[in-house]
């Protein structure tokens, strides 16, 4: 029954695991960078509060939800009225100011998309996405 010591057995297993791992590496080759981690731009309410300095809050939700309540000082910026809202936001921004984008439910990717466009299209740095969005902000006030 016994074929070899645990060390030899272990080595066989270590090698066996290489094969599927290699396959997976090839499968994911275009979706992952080996040289640098993906942009990690999520920020929690607590982190945002401790950031200090001035923060420009950007609300990526639909206008009705923004009207019903938003983070104090936040500016509305969503894909539906992008062209008219973006200049307002850009004119309010101060160089060096951090931008935190938030949206409604966690499932909604609007804040991520707005953050991406601010980075890629408007060439802004220090753009973050609020983890948990508006609900997390409301929760933190309790």
């Amino acid at each position, binding site marked *: 029954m016994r074929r070899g010591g645990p060390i030899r057995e272990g080595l066989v297993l270590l090698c066996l695991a290489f094969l599927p791992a290699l396959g997976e590496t090839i499968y994911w080759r275009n979706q992952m960078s080996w040289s640098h981690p993906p942009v990690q731009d999520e920020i929690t309410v607590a982190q945002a509060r401790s950031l200090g300095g001035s923060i420009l809050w950007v609300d990526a939700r639909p206008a009705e939800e923004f009207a019903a309540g938003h983070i104090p000082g936040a500016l509305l910026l969503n894909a*539906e009225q*992008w*062209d008219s809202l973006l*200049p307002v936001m850009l004119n309010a921004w101060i160089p060096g100011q951090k931008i935190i984008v938030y949206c409604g439910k966690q499932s909604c990717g609007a804040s991520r998309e707005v953050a991406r466009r601010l980075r890629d*299209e408007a060439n802004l740095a220090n753009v973050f996405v609020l983890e948990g969005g508006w609900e997390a902000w409301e929760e933190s006030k309790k």
Partner: protein
Amino acid sequence: MKTQIVNLIAFFVATSLTGIAQAELKWEQTQIELHPAPGDATAVGSFKYKNTGGAVVHFKSVTTSCGCTTAARKKDDVAPGETGEITATFKVGASTGTQQKTVRVETDDPASPVTILTLRAMIPQMLELRPSFVYWENSEPPKPKTILAKAAKELHANNLKVTSSSGEFVASVSSIGQNQFKIEVQPHDTSHPVSATLTVQPDSGGKPVYATARVVNPPSTQ
């Protein structure tokens, strides 16, 4: 060897007990990729389903992830053997690039109470400005800054017309080939804060795109 096989079977039975009941509502696909044509106002995807079980399946709710998406169901109850579809409409608006929206379908089917349908829309951009925002800080010399404009081939643009909402900025356009243009923006002076919206319009028609130019006052704390 025999006990090993028994063990293996026992393990898989134990771990898959919850998944053994077959879902009654079978979706033809839960992911759709759409390629709306340039200028389309909406992109519509229909998710087809069939009730392959023996009981009526009732839709409890159909909700979308964002305000820019709507989903419609034609009926609330699906009889055994019946087919149908849920259509998801995505309002393109000023969105660009790849947009992913989800539709959450809740049914009374105990095997799979919640199904997430994914709608991916690849929205072509006719005219793209990089960056869409240029600014000068108060102390900066009023040198020109460049915005690169990439036009889609289908736009057949030979030139772009750039107008500034404020006389404080001048903009000039030059074609650099391959449907690309260089827009140079320059403020008259940077001694006082001022901003302008630049409207970029292809000579071949089509929707204009916008850029923002601004002279910024440094924050008072600095």
